[in-house]
């Protein structure tokens, strides 16, 4: 299984994501400059966190027009796995690969802390190794993680099992229905605000994020073999 991590000007968790793939999965991973329009060689795409284009105008708004985003849409369409973390989630929203939009945190401040999340759906390619309803610890670090969608969309997300993670206990940003991460209808595109790549060893404060990467690998190689 080959991974790509697109790098936008201003991405700053690109290396962290690549490191997690290398160290936790021991699979090849490439950083791909945003001007590259081709991701055909990869099975999974991780859109990293950071501040693409400084988050100017709206988070993710300027990055979505990068050439690499066309390739990401194509990859999603082919059923490859796409994981958008933090800014990556925001880019997925802006580009319409996931429904909804992001607003500034309800308290208006940037918030960096380790949060408890509930795994709402462990049937996705990204969560197979978690228990349904399990509480896990993942760090967040964002100023605009206040997820919004209208009621109709929310109902659909609920009914179709697209809400993958919710904040448990205190909601750190005011997001609708405590949403921390959602998948698309097909289930192969996950966007979440928390950072699994920052929680892969106990010394980081939690190692619960490692299973997200491992779930992806298990799912993919279960379907396609260990290519």
């Amino acid at each position, binding site marked *: 299984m080959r991974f790509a991590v697109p790098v936008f*000007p*201003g991405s*700053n*968790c690109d*290396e*962290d994501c690549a*490191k*997690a793939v290398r160290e936790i999965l021991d699979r090849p991973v490439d950083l791909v*400059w945003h001007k590259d329009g081709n991701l055909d060689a990869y099975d999974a795409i991780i859109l990293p*966190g*950071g*501040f693409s*284009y*400084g*988050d*100017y105008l709206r988070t993710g708004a300027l990055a979505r027009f990068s050439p690499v985003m066309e390739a990401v849409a194509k990859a999603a369409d082919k059923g490859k796995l796409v994981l958008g973390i933090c800014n990556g989630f925001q880019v997925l929203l802006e580009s319409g690969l996931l429904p909804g939009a992001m607003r500034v945190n309800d308290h208006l*401040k*940037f*918030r*960096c*802390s380790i949060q408890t999340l509930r795994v709402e759906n462990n049937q996705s390619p990204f969560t197979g190794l978690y228990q349904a309803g399990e509480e896990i610890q993942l*760090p967040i*670090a964002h*100023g605009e993680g206040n997820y919004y969608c209208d009621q109709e969309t929310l109902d659909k997300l609920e009914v179709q099992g697209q809400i993958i993670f919710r904040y448990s206990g205190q909601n750190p940003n005011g997001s609708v229905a405590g949403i921390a991460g959602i998948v698309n209808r097909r289930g192969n595109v996950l966007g979440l605000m928390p*950072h699994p*790549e*920052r929680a*892969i060893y106990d*010394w*980081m*404060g939690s190692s619960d994020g490692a299973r997200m990467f491992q779930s992806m690998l298990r799912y993919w190689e279960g379907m396609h073999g260990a290519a």
Partner: protein
Amino acid sequence: MVQPEQQTTAVHVVERVTDQEPTPTQIRDGELFQEVGLNHEEYQQITKHLGRLPNWTELGIYSVMWSEHCSYKNSKPLLKRFPVEGPQVLQGPGEGAGAIDIGDGQAVVFKIESHNHPTAVEPFQGAATGVGGIIRDVFSMGARPVALLNSLRFGPLSNSRVRYLFEHAVAGIAHYGNVIGIPTVGGEVDFDDSYEGNPLVNAMCVGVLSHDELQKGVAKGVGNPVIYVGASTGRDGIHGATFASEELGEDAEEKRPSVQAGDPFMEKLLLEACIELVKKGILIGIQDMGAAGLTCSSAEMASKGETGMELDLDQVPQRETGMTPYEILLSESQERMLLVVEDGREAEVQEVLDKWELPSAVVGRVTNDNRYRIRHQGRWVADIPVQTLVDDAPVVYRTGKEPEAYRQNAGIRVDQPSVDIHPGEALNQVLASSNVASKRWVYEQYDHMVRTSTAVRPGSDAAVVVLDGLDKALAMCTDGNGRYVYLDPQEGGAAAVAEAARNVVCSGARPLGITDCLNFGSPEKPEVFWQLEGAVDGMSEACRQLETPVVGGNVSLYNESKGTIHPTPVVGMVGLVESRQHITTQAFKEEGDLIYLLGETFAELGGSELQLILDGKVSGRPPKIDLQREKKLHQVILTAIQKGWVRSAHDCSSGGLAVTLAESSFDHELGARVEIETALDATTYLFSETQSRAVLSIPQEYADAFQRLMEEEAVPCAKIGEVSGSCLTVEVNGQQVIDAPVKELKSIWEGAIPCAMNASSTN
């Protein structure tokens, strides 16, 4: 373009660039040099250096180069007293940042810098651009920045303007560090009336490089191109360096330069591009444009290279139209770098800069005649001997005078509280004081985990950052207690270094060296100069004894608005953790672990948090420091940690032993039962701020070995209790004086700052 061939004879320099500018004779006759902060004597010197009257552009260049901020004219003689050498030092003071060897061909690069005046005027941008500046200092050395810290001083949070300044300064620091993607892992915050009109914002950056990547800010090689890269130049921040070298008077509003706004996104691109250039080995010299902008960076590079430089200002990317040479040269627009590269390799450089979509231009050439020459629209507008700007900058030798208050303080008793107060009540009050209270409100706004290297996050004695591919790690912290220094500059200066080292040691690291920021009032006041001198001496002595040389720093004088701030030297310390296994935090971790207090406790409440709370001010003498004892303490703690005996270590600082115990219990909400025998009264004992002490928790199985080590090394060591339950209980001489659920104490400690910040603020 500037001609590469050499000018052997002096060029013709225009008298003025526009009709609005004064002519050289008008400057002389109207004494206009005073307007840019130069005095008669300095003006005379300039005239002598040039052999003619300076024009307005040249005067501007001298005024910023000779400002305190760039030339350290008041502090230079004192800074020479710092020990700056050591076998581990790769680069001492003088470059963008200092560098220290950490083995394996790697080095740590770090520096601290103030942005006090800009923050007082516009807290968000002022603090943000302070962070941006210090990051450039570190990557201009060729290092990859890996961590940020910040040391903050504000007036009391009961004041709504202070809340505004504090809130926005923190947001500005957060903004810059978060966007650029460097974790802000530590720092400190202190509140005191003396900072009300003049807050302090000191930012520190730590980077890592391979020895062979170390860069210098030199211009060498005649004919080599000088390349400008980064944001375009606007009129912002003109005379920022001079502004920083004056008191904040009533008219600060009018005088202040137009505020510099930071663009961390641009700096992220600049950072990546510069590191790529370093890795390619193309650079001969690199320096960031910080205070005094293009002028300072180019003149210093030429001076260090013992060369000359010619610049053509028409090539400088400009954001505004109609800028004069004076404005272009003195602008402090942010996110700009100056590079000198080998002639003929411009295209290689260009390729990298294009990838990162950075504006750039060849703006000059290195020359060999030690002249600093500036061209603008085909005319020469300045021609100055380089060394007169840097090496020959005036030095002011001042003498200090002992302040009246210092003498008076000698007679004030500080060996017991001025008011009878029960220890339990005292603990509640001290934990609720904004100085001691949890700073989570601050550091939660900072991304402290990006780069996934942060092993100890904010909230322990020092932060620890692991190094990619190595078992080693770096511990780092900032410290400085202005109240101690106010009461006794020498003791306070030494204590700042000692506390910083102690914090790093408690985290499992060997202290390597320091960077410092000297925040003081006007050196023209003999009493302030006396404070500066005493603090530098105290710090120097501590650095010598603890073998932590000073590898860089920054001086911020004229910190006055309504009154003078407390003299506040801030120490940024970096230590090396030999193995990740040694990483230690302050939190109690297992019930049944034994609690030891290392060091002796004396009745020392002068300058303490308890005294401040009870009396509303500090008085007397601060705690005394014995540096030999301090050093011994560090050695034994480090040995015990490296042997694997230590489950937690926390030094005693503000709030004394009581606060140390409480803080150790908060993280895992694990209480302690503590019993103390002492000849002192309970409150004094528990809240004294005697130096050279730490609290360790040790698993029972290592207790004997640990105690033996302490005996062998003759370090005073008392077993005072055991980690246990969910309450903190303390008995002194058989009498229970504190008994409180940890949860309750923690909520007082965590609630104080958020609660204070809930009130409204206004700009």
